[in-house]
């Protein structure tokens, strides 16, 4: 099979220019995971300045996702590890408030699944990211290799607030280390599977769907554009619905409320699922891009127009992905 472009053409309009202050929800199921799509988001964001002339000198940066060492050194990318030490308990006392604090010293927690096995990592590294990262202040560059690890401590909204402070601190550093101009650089935030935190805590710890949604709102306010991934497997979504004939567990109720609420707040919802007709050798799954509940809320002026679409995708053995319409 011919080698695929790192960014499939059919996907380009959907992932390359997330509008400002927007939320994009990516839902996936066990049989059709979203790793490859998140990598495409990263790729689109990190090569952005090269692709688009509109934004001029401003650059988008991405927090979370993969350990892209070189980008991290250039302060164009930061990875916050939300899994490794999330439940290791509190170590330090004072939560990091100052953005200038060292990345590794912050005590608090945050959520997201960690680095995943990377089908697309090679393609991400191919195009050198655009220049101008090198003039960041040296004292920040010093910490560049450090990965922020989140730790959850306490209960309820206070625990989430601490996580939020840690992440916003990283975002602020990225913003500040931009081009040395007055203008702050734009930061895209990818929150990978925050439902883990919800599942691991739950309403008995004071963290429910509402608290999680408010936490996402808080992160959204710090970043320029936000992408959040979430599981949408049937038991997690449908067991809690009114048509189910048994009492739903708190996990099912909270997850369904969080996931559906996220789709209500998102401008774009990208849904990954298995092929209805069963497994196929040359199709990995179906991607449906729909307008979320928040689509159309902002002023119509300047709003990018895109069409809802359903396509098939195939992740090849080398990690490259082809995206095509049905029957093509």
């Amino acid at each position, binding site marked *: 099979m011919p080698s695929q472009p790192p960014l499939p053409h059919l996907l380009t309009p959907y992932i390359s220019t997330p509008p400002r*202050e927007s939320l994009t929800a990516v*839902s*996936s*199921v066990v*049989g*059709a995971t979203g790793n490859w799509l998140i990598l495409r988001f990263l790729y689109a964001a990190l090569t952005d300045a090269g692709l688009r002339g509109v934004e001029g000198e401003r650059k988008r940066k991405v927090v979370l996702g993969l350990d892209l060492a070189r980008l991290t050194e250039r302060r164009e990318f930061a990875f916050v590890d939300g899994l490794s030490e999330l439940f290791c308990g509190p170590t330090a006392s004072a939560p990091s408030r100052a953005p200038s604090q060292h990345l590794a010293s912050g005590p608090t927690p945050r959520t997201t699944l960690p680095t995943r096995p990377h089908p697309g990592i090679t393609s991400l590294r191919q195009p050198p990211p655009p220049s101008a990262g090198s003039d960041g202040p040296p004292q920040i560059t010093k910490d560049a290799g450090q990965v922020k690890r989140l730790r959850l401590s306490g209960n*309820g*909204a206070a625990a989430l607030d601490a996580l939020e402070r840690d992440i916003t601190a990283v975002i602020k550093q990225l913003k500040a280390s931009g081009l040395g101009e007055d203008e702050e650089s734009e930061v895209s935030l990818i929150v990978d599977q925050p439902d883990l935190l919800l599942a691991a805590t739950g*309403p008995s710890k*004071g963290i*429910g*769907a*509402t*608290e999680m*949604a*408010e936490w996402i*709102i*808080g992160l*959204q*306010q710090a970043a320029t554009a936000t992408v959040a991934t979430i599981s*949408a*497997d*049937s038991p997690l*979504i*449908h067991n*809690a*619905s*009114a*048509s189910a004939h048994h009492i*739903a567990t708190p996990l099912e*109720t*909270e997850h*369904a*409320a969080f*996931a*559906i*609420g996220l*789709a*209500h707040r998102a401008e774009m*919802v990208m*849904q*990954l*699922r*298995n092929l209805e007709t069963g497994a196929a050798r040359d199709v990995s799954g179906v991607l*449906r891009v*729909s*307008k*979320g*509940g*928040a*689509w*159309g*809320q*902002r*002023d*119509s002026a300047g709003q990018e127009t895109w*069409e*809802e*679409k*359903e396509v098939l995708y195939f992740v090849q053995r080398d990690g490259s992905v082809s995206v095509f319409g049905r029957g093509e």
Partner: protein
Amino acid sequence: MAPSSLSHRQTHNLLLISKLLSLRDTASPLTLLLDSLEQPATPLIKEYIRRARLSKVHVTLIAFEALKPYDGVDAFVPARRKAPTEIMREVAAAYKPDSSNSPNRRRLILIDSINPLLHSTRLDRSFHLSSFLSSFIVPSGPTTSKPDTSLVVTFHQDVPGRPAQSPYTPSPLSLLTYLATTVIKLHSFSHILAQKAARDRSLVPPVFGLEEEQDGVLLGRLDKPVGKGTEAGGVVLEMEYRRKSGRGVLEWYLLPPASKYPATQLKEIVTLLDDHPLYRPPEDLGDANGDEEPESTFELRLTERQRRDREGVVLPYFDAQQGNGPGEGGRILYDMGEEDDFDEEEDEI
């Protein structure tokens, strides 16, 4: 339906929806919008705001979901991480009635989604939804110049709620529908058309999105799933208005897409769903006007003259009753008409 009662219904119910959406006479203090991922309430909320701006109504948005205010909102109250009392205080502070100038300026308060509040773990037992909502409408103090306030609350039907603490407490949705003076349920027009097409063929109506219960599907909506034309845009409003007498008015309306009319349009743009050509094609109406006779290749009807002639025929038993003697009555009396052709020979046989 008889044409007169249809036109009466049209006039009456269009006036009603116009009054409700334009917030005239505080026709509905508490309006509940029931939306879903398949048809979010955004277009209707924008329509409320558009009309409020035209009639200079003060608009407050209590945002549990939105990051930024909608276009045209006068006061924006983000409700993230706030206690209900705090929200109430901020909303009250957001609008000071200007006693000197226009004391009776009306006010519209929008809640972009009540679900996060109902689902919050922070609510204590002292929180009562009814008193929370009524605090926005009913004047709390002895102030006389409280403006006429209309409250519009959005509820996402597809977001599951938390099981009630006590088995005897009603679910928040039951409580909201009980309190509301108007309930508007939103549907996507293209879905309504698809379901009607299925029903017309006696098929099971299709379901969309979450109701499909398909693994991995949150949203079924695609731009043009049915009726490829661009006409199928728009929002169907299933309205239930409760009068003060307690009687309810039920009606289905269609709100066209905002791109179809200018933002300053004053004329009513909402129509009855039954009046839409895609929902009720015009040929159906033609049938109702026609005659009840079944169609056939034979002419089964009588002309006026034929009917008169038929009525003039004296049937044999009338003649028999005259009693001119046995054998006399019962003759077949026949008057020759001009079109009759008397055949001598045949008569003799």
